[in-house]
């Protein structure tokens, strides 16, 4: 069982040419995620969502505090789906998948093809990314993340660059694969509808990277945005968001809780 333990995590970016002052992305964040749960991290721009995932993935270092992603006591294997597909343009789809795979064998290729099939792309294994649409490229990104058999799956707004219809289709794919694999997932989004549709738990962050609220969702899956129960939860999350917005505006975040 995978565990992600985040303790007093702070990330402060030093001043740059664009920002004369230092920027606090995360301010003493504490979080504990255990088991095969799908957790959505929701917050407005500047709340440190992407920074949090980058630190969990080991791409960035925290200013202070610690992050431990463990599977049975050893460092967990991470699978990361980025906002953009991040595929090597000069490699074919299957080679892009095998690029992150340690083993190189016929079996690895079969596994890659299996995950491509799961995202509905079995026919494009030998094509180059430039031959695919943005939605198809993102599906390859999702398949690549599952190929490494991750203990912890990180998803950083994977649908934000896609049109509404393609985004909805990809959410279906993701939900289907996740239900089959049940990986511990951290899903960053600013879209409450997405969060309610996919997550077991929603953690709300406010600007400055401070946890504001933690909401458990116990609705049965698969969920559709049009379901009345899903809409009710969305309304509740949005109400709390509004409260957070007001609290942030008036500087009374703690009091508003």
């Amino acid at each position, binding site marked *: 069982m995978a565990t992600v333990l985040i303790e007093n995590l702070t990330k402060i970016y030093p001043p740059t040419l664009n920002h004369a002052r230092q920027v606090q992305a995360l301010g003493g964040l504490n979080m504990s995620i255990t088991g095969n749960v799908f957790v959505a991290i929701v917050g407005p721009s500047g709340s440190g969502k992407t920074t949090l995932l980058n630190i969990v993935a080991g791409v960035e270092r925290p200013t202070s505090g610690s992050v431990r992603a463990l599977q049975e006591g050893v460092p967990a294997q991470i699978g990361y789906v980025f906002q953009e597909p991040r595929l090597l343009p*000069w490699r074919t789809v299957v080679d892009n998948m095998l690029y992150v795979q340690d083993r190189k064998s016929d079996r690895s290729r079969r596994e890659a093809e299996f995950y491509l099939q799961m995202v509905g792309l079995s026919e494009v294994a030998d094509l180059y990314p430039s031959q695919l649409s943005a939605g198809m490229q993102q599906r390859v990104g999702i398949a690549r993340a599952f190929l490494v058999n991750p203990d912890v799956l990180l998803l950083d707004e994977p649908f934000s660059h896609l049109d509404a219809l393609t985004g909805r289709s990809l959410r279906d794919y993701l939900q289907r694969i996740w239900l089959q694999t049940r990986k511990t997932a951290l899903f960053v989004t600013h879209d409450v509808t997405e969060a309610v549709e996919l997550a077991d738990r929603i953690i709300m962050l406010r600007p400055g990277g401070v946890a504001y609220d933690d909401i458990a969702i116990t609705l049965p899956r698969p969920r559709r945005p049009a379901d009345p129960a899903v809409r009710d939860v969305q309304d509740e999350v949005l109400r709390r968001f509004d409260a957070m917005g007001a609290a942030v505006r008036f500087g009374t975040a703690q009091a508003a809780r």
Partner: protein
Amino acid sequence: MSDIHAYQSLPGLRQHDSRPAAEGPLTMRGLLRRPWFIRLVAVGVLVFIWQWVTWVNTRVPGIDEIVRFMVTEMTGGSHGGALTGEFWEPLSLSLQRYAIGLAVGIPAGALLGLVIGASRWARGLFNDTVLVLLALPAVVWAFLASLWFGLSSAGPILAVILTAVPFVAVNLAAGVRNIDPGLVEMSRSYGVPAGRRLRHLLLGGTLPSAFTGLRLAFMTGWNSLLIVEWFGATSGVGWRARFWYDALRYPGFVAWIFLFVILITVFDRLLLSPLERRAFQWNQQPTLTFEEEL
């Protein structure tokens, strides 16, 4: 089938066919769109201008004179008096020097470029030196090489090396710096080992600028080789061109200069361009049509 696919498959939705139309009969308008035809016209215009210049200025040798001269050189025939044709020896000597110079200069430039591109410290240390090398004209190397090595093969070889190194280094360093940071982050997050990153990410990411550097190294290396042979050698293509220039036999001089141009063009067309096409085939594939995507 997901909802989106069902929507896209609705009867009555017609997709635009982006496949190229079948080639019809060749018209004048169609010909003007063909790159080979435009190239042919350009060569024809050049030949015409040349021929016209030879009519108005008798000191400019005609194309027929040049061809006759080169045939005599190649067959070892007589140019009059004690002068006989020499072709293969100067050519093979120059090609040898060129090959040795590039064999040393390209890997050295690639290594330097990778280091400069990857390390800020190395950039500070080597960047100015590389820019100085880049700015120095080949004729300076010719004089320096003659001073240092006399009239031997070392001068021309050194000139090729010193010309190739900065062109390859500068372009490769730019290629390394331009690698998409998102791809580097992706590789780090998946823990891709350094060896695989080097082979797949660095090599693939720097390939466009590496080709630019290679092409410039090939062209300018050949250029500087000829200049150094002209001023500081007693053999080779550059020396032979100067020999005929000093002997006031302009058809001979122009013939060897022509050979220089033809060789570099053939080299580019037969080796570099096909290699480049092969390396960039990923960028030349048609995008899937809407129907194929479904």
